[in-house]
C-alpha cells in the first residue's frame, strides 16, 4: 500500500522544528522512519504533517562524558550505535542490544531514539533504558525536560512525550562500578521482534549482586522491570537457589499477552528462561566489570 497524503517540512534548526510541532496538532517527527513509514504504508497512521529532523545539526552526535555517561542524539542510527567503540566500552549493554534490532538495512536507517519514542512493546531499546535508568531528553518550545525511563513508557506505543515535544536525545548515565549487562531474547526468526526479551544489568561487588535490573520486553504493553525478582537477586551471588526464586517471581509477576506467535504461558516461561540465561552469563563473566 501507499502512504496517505501528508504535509512535509524539513526544518534546518531545532527551534524551527519545535515551532512546527507546537503549531500543528497532528504532526509526527520523521527521523529514520523505520517505525513510522511501515505504519503509514499500512495506512494504520495518517499524520497531517511530517517534520523531518534529518537536517538539524547536532542531533547526530554521540557524546561521551568524562564519567562514561553517554548521550545519543535523535539522528543516531542503530548501525552507528552498533559501530561506536565509545558505546561498546562505556555502555556495553546498549551496544549489546543493537545487533538484535531488525536487520542491517533497518539498522542503517532506524534511530535509537526513534525506537524509544515509538515504544514498541517488543523493542529492545526501551528495556535497555529501563535497565540503565536512562534519561529521556525531551524538548519543546516550552523548554527542555528530562524524563526518567521509569516514567517514560506509559502504555502500548504510548509514552510521556507531549504532542509538541521532540525526543532530542537519550542519556545513559555512567555505569556503576561492577556493573555487567547483557541483552538476551528469543525471536521466531533472527531479526524478528522478540517473543520475549530481557535487558539485564547486575552490579557486582566481588561475587555479590548489589543491584539488579531485569527489564523485560515483548511480555506486556510496554517494557517493564520486575522488581520482586530483582530484589530476590540482590545480596546473593546469583546462585541457583536465588535464580530459582527470581524465576518464580518473574513468572508470578508478569502477565504477558498471547498472539499468533506465542501463548501467554509460553512467554511467561520464556521470561524465566531468559532470566536464568542472563544471570548465569553475567555471574560467570570475569575480568573487567561493565
Amino acid at each position: 500500500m501507499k502512504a496517505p497524503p501528508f504535509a512535509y517540512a524539513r526544518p534546518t534548526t531545532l527551534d524551527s522544528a519545535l515551532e512546527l510541532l507546537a503549531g500543528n496538532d497532528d504532526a509526527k517527527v520523521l527521523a529514520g522512519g523505520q517505525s513510522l513509514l511501515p505504519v503509514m504504508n499500512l495506512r494504520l497512521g495518517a499524520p497531517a504533517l511530517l517534520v523531518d529532523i534529518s537536517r538539524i545539526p547536532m542531533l547526530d552526535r554521540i557524546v561521551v562524558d568524562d564519567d562514561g555517561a553517554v548521550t545519543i542524539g535523535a539522528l543516531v542510527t542503530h548501525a552507528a550505535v552498533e559501530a561506536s567503540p565509545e558505546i561498546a566500552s562505556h555502555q556495553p549493554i546498549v551496544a549489546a542490544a543493537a545487533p538484535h534490532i531488525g536487520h542491517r538495512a533497518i539498522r542503517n536507517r532506524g534511530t535509537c531514539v526513534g525506537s524509544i519514542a515509538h515504544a514498541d512493546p517488543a523493542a529492545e531499546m526501551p528495556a535497555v533504558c529501563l535497565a540503565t535508568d536512562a534519561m529521556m531528553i525531551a524538548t519543546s518550545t516550552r523548554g527542555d525536560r528530562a524524563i526518567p525511563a521509569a516514567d517514560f513508557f506509559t502504555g502500548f506505543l504510548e509514552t510521556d512525550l507531549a504532542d509538541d515535544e521532540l525526543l532530542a536525545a537519550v542519556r545513559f548515565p555512567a555505569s556503576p562500578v561492577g556493573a555487567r549487562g547483557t541483552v538476551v531474547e528469543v525471536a521466531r526468526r533472527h531479526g524478528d521482534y522478540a517473543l520475549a526479551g530481557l535487558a539485564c544489568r547486575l552490579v557486582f561487588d566481588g561475587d555479590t549482586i548489589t543491584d539488579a535490573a531485569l527489564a523485560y520486553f515483548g511480555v506486556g504493553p510496554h517494557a517493564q522491570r520486575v522488581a520482586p525478582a530483582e530484589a530476590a537477586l540482590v545480596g546473593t551471588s546469583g546462585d541457583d537457589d536465588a535464580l530459582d526464586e527470581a524465576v518464580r517471581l518473574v513468572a508470578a509477576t508478569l502477565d504477558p499477552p498471547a498472539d499468533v506467535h506465542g501463548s501467554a504461558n509460553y512467554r511467561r516461561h520464556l521470561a524465566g528462561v531468559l532470566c536464568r540465561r542472563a544471570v548465569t552469563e553475567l555471574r560467570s563473566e570475569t575480568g573487567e566489570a561493565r
Partner: protein
Amino acid sequence: MSDTMNETHVALGGDTTISCTVNGQAVSVEVPVRTSLSDMLRSALELTGTHLGCEHGVCGACTIVLDGAAVRSCLMLAVQADGTEIRTIEGLATDGTWHPIQQAMHDHHGFQCAFCSPGFMMTAVAMLEDDPNRTEAEIREELGGNLCRCTGYESIIDGVLGAIAEMRDGDGGVA
C-alpha cells in the same frame, strides 16, 4: 545545511523536487511528497529493477545502496533521499561487465524467479564493500533481512561466497 533558508515545506498533497545521484548520474525529479523512494526509482526514473514485495519493510526486495549503506527503499520517502547518492541493480554492471556478485550468482544458479534478486545483490554488495571477510554464518545473518521463496537460500549463499573468492583472489569458486 544549517541555515533556515534551506528549509523545505510542502503542503498536503503537494509535489517536491528531489535531486540526487543515481548510479553515477545526477538526477532531478518532481514527485508528490508522499512518494516512497522505491516508487520514485520505479516510476519517475523508470528503474524497475528495484522490486516491491511487501512495502512494509520485511521482504527486502526493494533494498538499494544509499550513501554506501543498504536501505529499504520502500521505507524511505523520496524526499528523504534528496542530496544522497544511490545505487540500484541497474548500476551494478560497468560498461557491460557484470559485477562479481552478478557473475557469481550466475555461476552458482543463485536465483530462480529472481524477483528478490536485486535486493539480495544490493544487500550483498553493501556488505562486501563494508567488509569482504565474511563467514557463511555472517553472510546468512546479513542476508537474513531478504526473503526468497524459490531457492532455499543455499545457491544465494554460495553465490556470495563465490563473489568473495573472486574478489579476493580471482577464483570464482566454481570448478
